[in-house]
């Protein structure tokens, strides 16, 4: 053990004697480790951000949207297929094990209050929306069943819209104009913050039937004369019943849409589980990619270390000869050079960790998410640095230990 400490001290002394060369050699490892650390922490940050996003919704939610989801593409809008209120009722009537259900209409609305004007997404919703998105009002109340059946002209504002129109004043009880129709504000939602689809608080909610019959009539009328909805959502009793719920929904919709055997669905059923799995797959692809970058840069860094160690062995041939003459054994020389290589790569790795953490620390100034430097990533980086040093230091160290002392002492 004392010999190892002695070797480490010696390694640090020789490395600092050649400071600029040592730093340049470490650079390869530093860049590799820095890249891996920053990218891994970005990956972890994105993952946390996505988890957060899903945690914002209710659990076991299954959604149906019109149109076929193209593989890899965005849902909806691919065909003229529509969902109607009839579809919604049929699903609710024929699907077992659901705790809550809702249907939504989505459009753009223009809000005016006094001199202020703002355009946001307007959702026509049923009261169950609070359960399905796990989202409650901060002030006042949300849309209730009576608002819906009576097609009342009431609106619940998102935080951003409330700020835009009312600044710091209390909006509840005030009357705003939505597409020139006077609406009474009954509540303001809590803030959901921004997501990759934009500001989630730039929204407003009105009762579904108010939206269909009084505000967005043109858009809400199917060819059949039925009322249109843009999405139907149900909350399953548990993850275990998800497949049976999905197949019940599919059967109902295929029958109502008169799809023949072999026809593709003209609707898309999306569950949270599926979404999370998709993101999971994306994340692991990212991880493999990062792993490859890391492996390549560590390989390049390692070759750099081997190169410098070989140069060092040649330059220090006489020193090695002297050390052997005064009693160093083969394994002593071997471990001395090995420790030197590992010290190089480990210091390089530590610098790389600092670089990576630095990059992770400045990212929040440019992006919406916060990279997380995890202990496991740091451990991995340290482990890899040591391994690279050992692996690429072994050959030079072995060459040093094999030198014949007489020839080494005579070396010019």
């Amino acid at each position, binding site marked *: 053990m*004392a*010999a190892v400490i*002695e070797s480490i001290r010696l390694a640090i*002394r020789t490395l600092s*004697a050649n400071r600029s060369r040592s730093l340049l050699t470490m650079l390869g490892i530093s860049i590799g480790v820095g890249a891996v650390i920053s990218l891994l922490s970005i990956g972890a940050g994105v993952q946390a951000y996505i988890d957060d996003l899903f945690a914002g919704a209710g659990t076991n939610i299954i959604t149906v949207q019109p149109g076929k989801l193209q593989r890899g593409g965005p849902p909806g809008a691919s065909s003229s297929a529509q969902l109607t209120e009839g579809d919604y009722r049929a699903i609710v009537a024929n699907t077992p094990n659901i705790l809550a259900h809702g249907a939504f209409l989505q459009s753009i609305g223009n809000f005016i209050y006094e001199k202020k004007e703002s355009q946001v997404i307007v959702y026509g919703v049923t009261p169950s929306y609070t359960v399905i998105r796990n989202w409650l009002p901060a002030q006042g109340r949300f849309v209730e069943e009576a608002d819906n059946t009576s097609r009342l002209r009431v609106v619940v504002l998102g935080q951003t819209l409330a700020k835009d129109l009312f600044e710091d004043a209390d909006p509840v009880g005030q009357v705003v104009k939505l597409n020139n129709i006077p609406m009474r504000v009954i509540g303001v939602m809590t803030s959901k913050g921004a997501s990759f689809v934009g500001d989630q608080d730039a929204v407003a909610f009105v009762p579904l039937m108010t939206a269909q019959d009084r505000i967005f009539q043109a858009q809400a009328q199917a060819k059949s004369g039925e009322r249109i909805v843009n999405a139907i959502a149900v909350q399953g009793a548990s993850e275990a019943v998800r497949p049976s719920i999905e197949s019940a929904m599919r059967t109902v919709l295929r029958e109502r849409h008169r799809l023949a055997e072999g026809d593709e669905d003209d609707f898309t059923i999306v569950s949270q589980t599926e979404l999370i799995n998709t993101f999971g797959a994306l994340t692991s692809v990212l991880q493999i990619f990062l792993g490859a970058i890391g492996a390549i840069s560590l390989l390049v860094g390692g070759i750099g270390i081997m190169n410098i160690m070989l140069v060092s062995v040649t330059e220090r041939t*006489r*020193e090695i*000869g*002297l*050390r*052997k*003459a*005064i*009693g*160093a*054994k*083969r*394994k*002593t020389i071997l471990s001395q050079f090995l420790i030197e290589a590992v010290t190089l790569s480990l210091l390089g790795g530590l610098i790389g960790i600092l670089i990576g953490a630095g990059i992770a620390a400045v990212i929040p100034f440019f992006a919406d998410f916060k990279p997380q430097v995890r202990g496991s990533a740091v451990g991995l980086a340290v482990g890899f640095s040591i391994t690279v040093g050992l692996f690429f230091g072994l050959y030079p160290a072995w060459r040093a230990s094999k030198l014949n*002392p*007489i020839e080494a*002492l005579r070396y010019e």
Partner: protein
Amino acid sequence: MNNNGRTPVIDVRDIYKTYQMGEHEVRALAGVSLTIYPGELVAIMGPSGSGKSTLMNVLGCLDQPTAGSYRLDGVDVEQMKEDELAAVRNRKIGFVFQSFNLLRRTSAIDNVEQPMIYAGVSAKDRRARATEALESVGLGTRLKHFSSELSGGQQQRVAIARSLVNNPAIILADEPTGNLDSKSGAEIMCLFQTLSREKGITVIFVTHDPRIADHCKRIIRIADGLITGDDLVAEQRDACAEHSAFTAAAALTAAAPGKMSAKK
């Protein structure tokens, strides 16, 4: 010879060392037998290529003879493996080289500590023993100096301190004064004489300079890999006295700056 019933520290019998150079063989040592007793100060002389360095390497356990036997301090070493030889070199032999071979960018005291690291001496004892050794060669005030900050003679004295720290049975020096002026040469020889006389350490050195060789009691002459002479010096020169004389002369020159500039 001066065999008063004591065991020899070096007992070499019929040593051969042959190098295969392509077609023909080079016989660097062609049957050398040699006995040296503790405390002797021995000079080895001979023409270039006669095998002096080869013999020193064999005596120093850096090289193994092609044939013959070698007992060092009562131990048979000719059958030893590489690592065992390293241990023998570490504990029984001190080396002094023509080109000093100090570690670069390393202080005198760190240089002197090196052999003790391989002997497993604790850091505290190393410091103490290295300081003591450097003091004994007159470098007590130069402990922290790097080799680049020392004169040739001082560097060679650091090397001698390094050769002493593990209390070796023998010190081997291949042309130790070859790179030094006569004053520093006398200083090194003074140290060797003191070590052999007062500490009973055997010192064997190679030299081409008969005036340096005359500092020992015994001169071994080699030619073509064979010992051709093993002589006792009738009147040993006193290296320490010579060195004092050099110092005194230097003091005189320094006192007369006119002469100095005239010389230039």
